[in-house]
């Protein structure tokens, strides 16, 4: 072993990060196989910016977040197909994908619409490369979505391993760091830009670069104490995680900005609607707080409930529902209203529920949000003040000091999506034809 190499097989913990390749694009392709091999982009709501790209689109140099109108010129030279985001479809496909992935370990953390962590520490007898291939094959067959699997002793390393699995065709979509020679890993880390590390943004990598930390290997070799002094405890944690030391536990991931997810396994099983309503309200309150703290608004939400897939004797039920909102909002009252509305539609009596969760999707910057003509601007202002007060009180007196007793708001239906594909899995009138 060379100087600075780390033998990851010496650490007992094994976490896997599984994510869908070009997830939104892959969802479109499941029901429209002709799109295979074609250049595709998916646009944000109101057909504004690119939020997902096929491999072919990436190869053309189309960047994330580019406004659609700026691609008009490129479209004249290349056949590019654009889709409005179809969150009903993506939400449903995500649910299916997560439930299949969940069959592979009792400990799963759904991290975003297309990413999930699994704890595989309990399977020391398994060849985890092989197990990863099984996950890949089953998700592809059952759901139709191609995924990559990264496995490592820590979450930060698992994310990195997932990145290697994607970029290196020889790995065939699965990378278990503990099974690779330590010097080989160091070599790959030397070739990988430090900005690929989980939690290292563009701004931070520029700062790191100024201190001659250019690659993942450089960051891993940096002294954790020095990093804490220069940057933060958060980045120190990252360095420790890169060295194999577990700092971020399951169910403990930092937030991802594109979606906000809040879900928990219950301590005990829950079978009545009231208890589920309470937990969903709590999750929405937490998620909405995060939403406001990052100055975003959500245009779509998803709520899901499920039984424990590992208690085989019990009847199984797992269901989610995507609720498009009439206009983007960060209002706890509104979000709770729609989440409970969705929950009532998916709830079924007679099951022992183990988990519930909510996901806020289709996020936009608050500054970009335009109230729809139907929204009452005065009312919106009042609501905004109410939310600020709620957050302040909850910040001062602890989470949940102020909660909603109920919400009574008139829902309005409106959404502009000119290029949306059919909602193949959630509308009888829009099934794929064969």
């Amino acid at each position, binding site marked *: 072993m060379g100087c600075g190499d780390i033998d990851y097989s010496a650490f007992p913990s094994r976490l896997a990060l599984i994510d869908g390749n070009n997830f939104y694009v892959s969802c479109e392709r499941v029901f429209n*196989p002709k799109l295979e091999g074609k250049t595709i982009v998916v646009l944000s709501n109101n057909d504004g910016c690119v939020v997902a790209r096929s491999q072919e689109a990436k190869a053309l140099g189309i960047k994330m977040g580019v406004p659609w109108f700026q691609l008009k010129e490129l479209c004249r030279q290349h056949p590019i197909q654009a889709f409005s985001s179809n969150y009903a479809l993506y939400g449903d496909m995500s649910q299916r994908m997560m439930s299949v992935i969940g069959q592979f370990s009792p400990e799963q953390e759904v991290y975003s619409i297309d990413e999930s962590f699994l704890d595989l520490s309990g399977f020391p007898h398994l060849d985890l490369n092989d197990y990863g291939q099984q996950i890949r094959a089953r998700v592809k067959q*059952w*759901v139709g979505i191609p995924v990559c699997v990264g496995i490592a002793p820590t979450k930060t390393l698992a994310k990195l391993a997932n990145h290697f699995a994607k970029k290196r065709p020889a790995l065939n979509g699965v990378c278990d760091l503990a099974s690779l020679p330590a010097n080989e890993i160091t070599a790959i880390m030397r070739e990988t830009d430090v900005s690929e590390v989980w939690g290292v943004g563009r701004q931070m990598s520029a700062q790191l670069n100024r201190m001659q930390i250019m690659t993942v290997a450089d960051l891993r070799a940096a002294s954790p104490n020095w990093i804490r002094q220069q940057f933060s405890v958060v980045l120190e944690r990252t360095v420790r995680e890169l060295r194999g030391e577990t700092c971020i536990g399951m169910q403990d991931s930092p937030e991802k900005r594109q979606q906000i997810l809040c879900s928990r396994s219950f301590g005990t099983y829950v079978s009545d609607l009231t208890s589920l309503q309470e937990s969903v309200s709590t999750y929405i309150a937490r998620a909405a707080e995060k939403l406001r703290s990052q100055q975003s608004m959500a245009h779509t939400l998803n709520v899901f409930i499920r039984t424990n897939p590992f208690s085989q004797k019990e009847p199984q039920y797992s269901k989610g*529902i995507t609720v498009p909102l009439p206009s983007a909002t960060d209002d706890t009252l509104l979000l709770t209203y729609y989440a409970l509305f969705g929950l009532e*539609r*998916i709830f079924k009596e007679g099951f022992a529920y183990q988990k519930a969760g909510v996901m806020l999707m289709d996020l936009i910057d608050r500054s970009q949000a335009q109230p729809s003509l139907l929204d009452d601007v005065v009312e919106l202002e009042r609501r905004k003040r109410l939310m600020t007060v709620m957050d302040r009180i909850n910040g001062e007196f602890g989470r949940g000091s102020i909660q909603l007793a109920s919400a009574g708001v008139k829902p309005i239906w409106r959404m502009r999506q000119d290029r949306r594909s059919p909602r193949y899995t*959630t509308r*009888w009138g829009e*099934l794929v034809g*064969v």
Partner: protein
Amino acid sequence: MSQQATSEAVQIRHSGVSLPRQCEHDVVQLIPGANTVRLPIASSKIAAGFPSPAADHMDEDISLDEILIEHPASTYFVRVKGESMKDAHIYEGDVLIVDKSLTPRHDDIVVAVLDGEMTVKRLYLRNGIVRLVPENPDFPVIDIQEGQELTVWGVVTSTIRRFRHA
């Protein structure tokens, strides 16, 4: 308004022909004031202190999902176009229940992808010969040639055919 919405919700739950799974999975249209009304399974009044004798005989709701859907995560619905499978009693407009988790076998009815097109046919899989066989003499058998790519998208497990329309 609320009265009307309520009776609608009851109708959906009671009508045997609609699939509860899909109703509940749908991205829903919001109806102000509409709350799903849960129908009691057995609604005898219970005397305080004594368990109702009916409790022992209470049944769960039965659901079409139980007999039609074995793997919810991998089960999809697709709509039939055309008459190429009419001798297998699959007609234009029918809904097929397709389970992607099943490994296709010889003689299964499958949804296949051929040259980017999705199609429903019977699968012939014997002695290295792969064919998609229509169930209608007016349609040709499709032999899969070497170099041609055939993907089985999923295995058809049932069809839903309505005889009376609303």
